[in-house]
């Protein structure tokens, strides 16, 4: 579960443009409001998978303060993967919130209008 969220968070971090490893970690912490702080090993494990699956690609490298940085960026298929997954997650979250607030609604499958949340 956690690595799935990290996966989405990495893709989200790269939506605005290319980013390096530490920058991605910083973005993940920010967009999860500090709830998600993956280890460096976990980060690169997920990045490896995303690169392998063609959702992310290596963009450029540079040396800052004597330290090596490699930048990653989203590919078109990575962008569509992100759109698809966030749409699914948004639907699940919306229904879950509604069902938590109004448990008797859970038997129905009425569409969410956005105002009931």
């Amino acid at each position, binding site marked *: 579960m956690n690595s799935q969220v990290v996966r989405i968070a990495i893709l989200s971090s790269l939506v605005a443009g290319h980013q*390096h*490893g*530490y920058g991605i*970690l910083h973005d993940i912490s920010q967009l999860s409001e500090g709830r998600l702080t*993956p*280890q*460096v*090993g*976990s*980060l*690169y*494990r997920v990045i*490896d*998978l995303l*690169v*392998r*699956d*063609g*959702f992310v690609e290596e963009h450029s*490298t540079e040396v800052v303060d004597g*330290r*090596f*940085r*490699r930048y990653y960026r989203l590919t*078109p*298929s990575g962008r*569509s*993967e992100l759109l698809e997954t966030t749409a699914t997650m948004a639907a699940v979250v919306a229904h879950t919130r509604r069902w938590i607030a109004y448990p008797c609604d859970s038997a129905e499958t009425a569409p969410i209008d956005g105002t009931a949340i």
Partner: protein
Amino acid sequence: MTSLEWWYRGLMFLYPADYRLHREEEMIATLLATAGNDQMRPTAGEAVGLLRHAVVTRTAIGGQAERASGRAWAGLVAAGGISALVVLVVGVHLRGEWATTLSDWFVPVWACISAVPLAFVALTHSLPRLAAPFAAVAGAAAIAGPATMMAQRVLLCSILMFTVITCTTPDGVPRRSRVVAVVCGGAAGVAGVIRLNLRPHGIPSPPHLAVYLHHTMPVSMPVELAWLIGAAAVAVVGVFRHPRFAVTVGLLLVPVWLSTIVLCDRLGDRGFNRAPTAIVVAVVAAMSVGFGTLRSTPFRRNEGSVAPDPA
């Protein structure tokens, strides 16, 4: 170089050399950037995270391009486990009731037979098309053996090996090769069992599968211990979240456990040795972990990689 960087670089040695060449500097920079100001050593979480990633990378799960070196490494570990299992099973039996009746050539023959799965996995990892021929050769070897109780053990070991191997080979092996391997191995095993039952060569035909399994597997350990270890092996796999292999292991162990329960009274004096049995189970557990890490990539990822690009 600071003390912390020295520690991080030490941990990076867990990774394969080619991965270090590509990623070490970048990862060290990220690790140092995330470290606390007064941090002198890697935290336990960092070390575990790196260790886990290194294991996954060495088994080429998370590699950028399915590196052949890692895959072969994992395959050889898995195949070595299977071969050791076979050799140990045979060793247990050779020291038991058959020790006085077998001639010396059985040992090298057994060694060759146990090498078959090793070669099978090693070659199919790099040359998937060889999966089917190897399955056929091993099956033929099982059938061509003497129609004795020993041959029955060869057959059943072969069937078990084919089941495990074909259920756990990496996704890199084409589906068709896997299906052919299962069909060849299974057909060879079934044909051999039928042949043995039709021509028992003076040996009473075992009444049902549980007895076959009991003759094949070292189940002389206490029933409770067998359950405990078997459950632990499946749990280890569960930790790595590999339902497919967990199911395979569970299905293979259930008849053994059941036969133990049903037949332990009748077959209690067969000369089984408990110590080798414990080693065999340890090897099975090691195989579980090996296969577990080997298969730690969900299948969905591979399907996702071939999804059409909407652009």
